[in-house]
């Protein structure tokens, strides 16, 4: 749009140089005078009572200054106020291998490391629970006493419209089971926190977190220090993807160790510890039943999800609802029933990862729609186009939809990928597949109930024309600082490089709830825009007076304030700012944003799902399967994404490509899996993040539906684009070899199995995936039997020698 001077342009990010040259200061780069180095002792048991912890030997070790344990911080904490079941360090009981048990601060890292082995912990083992099925069944073993039924964390049941009637009307009903394996974020920067408790009794915590505000609240609760004396600063995150949006043990441990020693304390997790901190994608078993008319029109959907939550709540209650909430916003669903259950298991807690809770059901649903299209003899793109949820509508579960560009995404993909031609070419081993998706542009509700804004921003203009934006957002590499600078620059008619961004500092910046749920562009963007427009009005007023023209003819752009009719009639931005300061006093504008009321329903559970606007996206994947080795190669992923308006197209494309990369990894190689309670691959060598040589060709098509609610029309771009990639690949594999992968990841082994080449029996399969709960696929006892067998054998061997 021509009236925008900054937004919509392909400008470099304001912090690109700092990130590229390594000069950005991450938490671990911080070194303070007299600083101590901390490390955490972690549980070696998946499920055990802590009978005794003796820290005396560790305390006596040369260089050790302080040791803290769970007993020093027994207060329960957790991100969701209603389900706080965690403590900073384990108290009385450990629930997964890798759970923090104690913290040591020492003069150097080596002493801290050595001292860990001198902390004596006596455990009494309890029977561990590792699978969804066991967790649902075993009433005799409780991971948390709070579970009413077996080890269920949360159960939800929702029903909308006439589900029974819907299925009765259907000409064709499909019922399928799916399993989505868990995986983790693997940000390149491992978590790090530096705490400094100073002589004035105030605590500062620099930490790589996505949620400085929520962490601020939890620090008060756990440390018993009033929030007025705590300052949380979110350092630039070297990637987060949802993995840094919980309060973590190391943050509290660093703080308490600093309070005890009166010296700054730094704790940086090593790579293995990041796998234990986790909070990544839940493994989910799903059952979907969908009824359709002959022409494909959906008559009813029934969806069940079983989430393996790991040992603690994290965002689990939201995740559970999210598995069901967004299935309705893409295609017309007149009747919908959703049952979800999340269980506790003795594994690192799962939480939000890019696409939070919607990725797994989206995979299942889009795979099932592909099957329905085949059943009905319809082209998968054409089929989806027929059943689109309309723009400016309400879904059956009462979600408000504003702009809706999924149709445009699908049509653009059909053209760009030569879909029809490729689809008709039938070469065994080569395939092409499609899937659609949607995501929220920020959660409609905050995590703790309140009527305050979700985001606030403050803008100041100094006498030299410099602009400072202050906002509580956390820069996690997604470009939020750049966004704040660009929106402020647009509103005030300057350049992004004239803007200084102060973000994520609970003492300096107004609250923003955090960089999660793809809310920053929508919410902090609107708050910044509002703040900027207030100042703009003051500048317009003084300039109109000075230039002698009506206010509606004044425009601000390119560091100039000028007459739209006669641009020669102008003054510089600095002049206007100085006039305004003379007239109004110090130039400070504050803005805030809160999602509008009425975007969701009123039923219990209606809080999860609503958003000011949904982003829409679709992806086409092209794959090649090596029929002899089972190796799956994804040749290309093309994603079309409706982001409302691309405030910076390069940045949006970066998010879309990054999402495609991440989705690709999730379905082809990545798994967070365990063997007898131990993480099977807690390193970047073994946890197979795709490398640049594996990554498919990526192409992005941006669709701009210009949303009425978004700042300058923008919606999210950070999470949604991951979702369609996964089912698109599964559907492409089906196109290539005629096998349905109703289970992730699609490994060579599974492909060989389906092709009848795994062994000599030559039995082929047309589907790989679960057939129900407890279908024997994941024999819950196997891992334990095996561990026991090897322990017994070891004991026998020992007694022999």
């Amino acid at each position: 749009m021509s009236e925008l001077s900054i937004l919509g342009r392909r400008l470099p990010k304001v912090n690109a140089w700092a990130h590229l040259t390594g000069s950005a200061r991450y938490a671990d780069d911080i070194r303070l005078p007299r600083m101590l180095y901390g490390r955490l002792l972690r549980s070696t048991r998946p499920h055990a009572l802590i009978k005794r912890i003796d820290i005396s030997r560790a305390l006596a070790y040369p260089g050790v200054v302080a040791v803290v344990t769970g007993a020093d911080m027994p207060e329960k904490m957790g991100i969701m106020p209603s389900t706080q079941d965690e403590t900073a360090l384990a108290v009385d009981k450990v629930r997964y291998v890798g759970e923090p048990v104690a913290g040591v601060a020492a003069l150097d890292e080596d002493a801290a490391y050595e001292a860990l082995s001198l902390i004596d912990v006596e455990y009494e083992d309890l029977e561990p629970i590792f699978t969804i099925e066991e967790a649902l069944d075993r009433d005799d073993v409780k991971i948390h006493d709070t579970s009413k039924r077996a080890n269920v964390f949360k159960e939800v049941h929702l029903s909308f419209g006439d589900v029974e009637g819907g299925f009765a009307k259907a000409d064709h009903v499909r019922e399928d089971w799916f399993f989505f394996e868990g995986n983790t974020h693997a940000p390149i920067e491992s978590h790090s926190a530096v705490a400094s408790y100073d002589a004035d009794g105030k605590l500062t915590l620099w930490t790589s977190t996505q949620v400085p505000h929520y962490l601020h609240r939890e620090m008060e609760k756990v440390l018993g220090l009033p929030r007025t004396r705590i300052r949380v600063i979110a350092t630039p995150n070297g990637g987060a993807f949802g993995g840094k949006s919980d309060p973590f043990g190391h943050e509290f441990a660093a703080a308490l160790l600093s309070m005890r020693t009166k010296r700054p304390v730094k704790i940086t997790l090593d790579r293995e510890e990041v796998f234990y901190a986790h909070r990544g994608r839940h493994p989910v078993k799903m059952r979907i039943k969908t009824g359709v008319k002959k022409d494909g029109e959906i008559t009813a959907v029934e969806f069940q999800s079983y989430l393996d939550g790991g040992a603690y709540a994290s965002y689990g209650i939201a995740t559970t609802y999210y598995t069901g909430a967004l299935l309705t916003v893409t295609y017309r669903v007149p009747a919908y029933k959703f049952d979800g259950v999340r269980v506790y298991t003795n594994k690192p807690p799962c939480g939000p990862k890019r696409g939070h809770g919607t990725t797994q059901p989206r995979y299942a649903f889009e795979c099932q729609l592909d099957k329905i299209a085949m059943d009905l003899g319809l082209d998968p793109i054409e089929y989806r186009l027929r059943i689109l949820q309309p723009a400016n509508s309400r879904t059956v579960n009462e979600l408000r939809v504003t702009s809706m560009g999924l149709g445009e995404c699908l049509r653009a993909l059909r053209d760009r990928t030569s879909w029809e031609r490729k689809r008709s070419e039938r070469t065994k081993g080569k395939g092409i597949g499609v899937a659609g998706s949607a995501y929220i542009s920020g959660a409609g509700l905050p995590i703790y109930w309140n009527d305050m804004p979700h985001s606030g921003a403050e803008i100041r203009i100094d006498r030299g024309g410099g602009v400072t934006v202050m906002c509580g957002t956390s820069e996690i590499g997604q470009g939020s600082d750049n966004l704040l600078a660009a929106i402020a620059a647009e509103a005030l008619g300057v350049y992004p490089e004239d803007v200084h961004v102060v973000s994520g500092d609970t003492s300096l910046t107004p609250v923003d709830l955090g960089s999660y749920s793809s809310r920053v562009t929508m919410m902090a963007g609107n708050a910044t825009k509002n703040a900027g427009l207030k100042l703009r009005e003051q500048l317009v007023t003084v300039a109109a007076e000075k230039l002698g023209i009506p206010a509606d003819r004044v425009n601000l752009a390119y560091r100039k304030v000028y007459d739209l009719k006669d641009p020669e009639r102008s003054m510089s931005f600095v002049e206007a700012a100085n006039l305004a300061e003379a007239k109004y006093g110090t130039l400070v504008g504050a803005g805030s944003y809160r999602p509008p009321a009425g975007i969701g329903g009123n039923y219990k559970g209606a809080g999860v799902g609503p958003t000011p606007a949904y982003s829409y996206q679709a992806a086409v994947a092209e794959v090649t399967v090596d029929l002899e080795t089972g190796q799956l190669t994804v040749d290309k992923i093309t994603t079309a994404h409706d982001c409302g308006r691309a405030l910076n197209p390069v940045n949006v494309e970066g998010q879309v490509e990054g999402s495609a990369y991440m989705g690709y990894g999730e379905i082809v190689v990545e798994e967070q899996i365990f063997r007898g309670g131990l993480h099977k691959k807690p390193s970047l060598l073994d946890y197979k993040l795709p490398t640049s040589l594996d990554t498919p060709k990526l192409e992005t098509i941006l669709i701009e539906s210009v949303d009425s609610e978004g700042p300058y029309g923008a919606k999210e771009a950070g999470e949604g684009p991951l979702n369609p990639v996964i089912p698109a690949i599964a559907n492409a594999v089906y196109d290539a070899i005629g096998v349905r992968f109703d289970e992730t990841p699609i490994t060579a082994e599974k492909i060989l199995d389906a092709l009848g080449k795994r062994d000599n029996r030559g039995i082929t399969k047309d589907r790989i995936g679960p057939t129900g709960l407890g279908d024997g696929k994941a024999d819950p006892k196997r891992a334990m039997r095996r561990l026991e067998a090897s322990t017994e054998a070891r004991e026998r061997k020992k007694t022999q020698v």
Partner: protein
Amino acid sequence: MLRLPRFRFVSPPSIEEAIHIRTEHPATSMYVAGGTDVYPKMKRRQFQPEVVIAIGGLVRDDFRGGTLAPLADTLPSVAEEGPLPLGPLPLGLRIGAGATLTEVAEHPRVREGYRALSIAAGLVSTPQLRNMGTIGGNVCLDTRCNWYDQSLFWRTAEGYCMKTHGDVVCRVATSSPRCLAVASADTVPALIALGAQINVVGPNGARTIDLAECYREDGINYLALEPGEIVTEIVLPPSDGWRSTYLKQRDRNSFDFPIAGVAAAVRMDRGVVTDARVAITALGSRPVRVDASALVGTKLDDEAIGAVADATHKAARPMDNTSGTISQRKRAARVFADRALRSLRDD
């Protein structure tokens, strides 16, 4: 970050001195060349040597700049002469054990005459590790196992295994009398297929051994070298008439160790195979040379290739201790042998 334990680092001036220090501390010292295997394992406390003896620089060739020298002194070194005329090397090639994998992979003479080695060295891990890692280190590389290649914390939680604690069982097969860890070096099968020998120097003097004889079917005592022996050179026989290749199965196209690897070399005379060698890695505790005699006298026809592929399949004995699965890797042995041999055909 995991940190290295304390240790004494020595950089002796000569091979003799290095051997001397090593024999003085038989149980508590280790040689290091590029350190790409030794140091990460020290961080994970799989190795805890008190003395680390740097030998990489001692076993590069004595001329400066180049690391590879032709076997015969009559041919000048690469460094002195610049690019040499390529073509078959009638006298073979001698590679200092301290040559980096990058140097080996990119050397024109290796590319020309010993393609399998160039490919294998170029497929090791990442460019950074190839710049540091040496071919000697690769030949002596420790065996791998996903119960063993873990941090001290992990192994403590798990309860250790036979490889580090003699009184504990093997986790992979609890009744196994030996450690089943996997031979995982990429260049070794290529070198074996190329008929390489190694020169070693040790407390009892120097000797030359066929590389194929250097390994044992034992994840713990995997090397048939005497304590304190240093690999000084890898010696390749004349390359005339030989063509070779290496295929590697791994999860990703960079970074990863092989989970199956097949090297094949054939000597052709007017379209007919006169000699052939096939060797595999990552499919057992030792690299295995596969009987490829079925190829001799044929024109690499389907049937002969099929027979050797079957033999390769039979020789592959993967266990469940790497990524991937047993059946996938065993199958890859056959498919890769087949593909490798087909790729050596004339057309």
